[in-house]
């Protein structure tokens, strides 16, 4: 399931901890970065790597919101909804994104390009409103900036 480079990273990860179990979160991150989400097959695979039961791996993976349980769009747009962003217009940003993408929160566009989700505080309140798209933060947003970001990502 992991590429050879991914397997090499996994072996390096194991050296950081006194036991295999502690490598669970980093291994789930690694698998998700290659597969896109934590599928049932991914859970079985990780369980095998770390000598844990699939049930256990599932119970841990499902605790953390960053591990996706289903296939997501190429770009996962995560809109911060917590108070500091909400005071600075995050609701407008979210409504605008919904309209522009034609999807509701939790959905993916039919072409598989964009998923829209809300998230809690991203620790970037000084540059609110903030969204995160995949690994990157986009800060100090307004509707024009959102347009530009979407345009750029649509072209890629």
């Amino acid at each position: 399931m992991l590429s050879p480079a991914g397997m090499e990273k996994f072996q390096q990860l194991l050296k950081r901890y006194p036991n295999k179990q502690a490598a669970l979160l980093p291994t789930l991150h690694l698998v998700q970065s290659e597969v896109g989400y934590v599928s049932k097959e991914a859970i079985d695979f990780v369980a095998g790597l770390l000598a844990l039961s699939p049930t256990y791996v599932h119970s841990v993976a499902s605790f953390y919101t960053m591990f996706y349980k289903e296939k997501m769009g190429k770009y996962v747009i995560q809109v911060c909804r917590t108070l500091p962003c909400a005071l600075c217009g995050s609701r407008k940003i979210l409504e605008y994104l919904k309209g522009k993408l034609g999807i509701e929160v939790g959905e993916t566009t039919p072409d598989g390009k964009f998923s829209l989700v809300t998230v809690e505080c991203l620790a970037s309140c000084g540059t609110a409103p903030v969204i995160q798209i995949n690994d990157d933060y986009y800060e100090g947003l307004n509707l024009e900036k959102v347009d530009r970001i979407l345009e750029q990502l649509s072209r890629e």
Partner: protein
Amino acid sequence: MAERIVFKNVEAPNSRELETYRARGGYRALEKALKEIKPDDLIDIVKRSGLRGRGGAGFPAGLKWSFVPKESKLPKYLCCNADESEPGTFKDRVIIEKDPHLLLEGITLTCYAIGIHTAYIYIRGEMVFGARVLEQAIAEAQRAGFLGNNILGSDFHLEIYVHRGAGAYICGEETALMESLEGKRGEPRVKPPFPATRGLFGGPTVINNVETLANIPDIVLKGPEWFAAIGTEKSTGTRVFCVSGHVNRPGTYELPMGVTARDLIYEHAGGIRGGRPLKAFIPGGSSVPFLTAEHLDVKLDFESVAQAGSLLGSAGFIVMDDTTCMVWAALNLCHFYEHESCGQCTPCREGTRWMSVVLERIEHGRGRQQDLDLLLDVCSNIRGQTLCPFGDAALTPVESTVKLFRSEYESHIQGKGCPFAP
């Protein structure tokens, strides 16, 4: 400009590179400590500085270190808490991204003082860039002999690893953080035993916040008396105040503890947007009670804020003008806590859900007069009834807004809706 400690390098060009850090005096504290200071004396220096934890609880750092037993059969660990997730708080990210070596030096000094040879930086999963910056800085420090075996020719050795979380606020709680690091669900542990005696992988463990650790190099270099002279008698040093919400210049401001809320809002953060009146502010992250305009002259140190009825917490300072509906604000934060409750303790798991339901109906014009007492009743049934401080945090925005803005709640109920524009 006031003296800066943890932000002293953040504006320097290429601040995250080792060369820049060295040129600005970096790793000199480590050189000094390894040559001249015995580990026990280092703990004593930090005790005398009066440094208190910057994560939220404000516990004296040196005292925390001194709880760790000298001899231990199991390895001792340091966890750097970089799971910065408290709404309104965004200071650790700046240190991590702009001055990673300051944090690494702080960690190394701390480990030297306590006799620790493995440290983990538990960074919130969303901070992908910050994690990368730290990994690079660790590699740089290793190549230059500031980490690894025989650090700077001494017999002290240390490995630092970056460990990413995966989107769970509760993992900022120290025992949940350790559970998460061990590859488990981030559910807080029963205390005692405390981490200092039985923590990560069962070994004695110290957990310190990023900003706390970033203070250590200057304390070592300039001395505890220098540090203790900044701030107030019991709240020594500076604090990075994170100002967000309805201000003209939101951002991070490192200032001596004891600056007033008025100075922070009106001088440093440029006042309220559009010159509007201040309605409320939260001085220490979303988990502490709201304060109002009558508290503007409160000094921002641990004692004074507590005396005013709130807490300095994480110094996440959220400002709200007169257009802000307090029921809506409480509901927003209640949703946060409902979403982030780990679900272990019934009062917290169910209480946050029910408070959301009741606040939702008040905000949308379906509230009943008895709902206000119901909310306070739910609060009192959560308080003190949970394993970790999350429960008390979750009830705080609700309880403090009901108490401070009861008439606003009542006008929602009597007017059958929210009087504020959405």
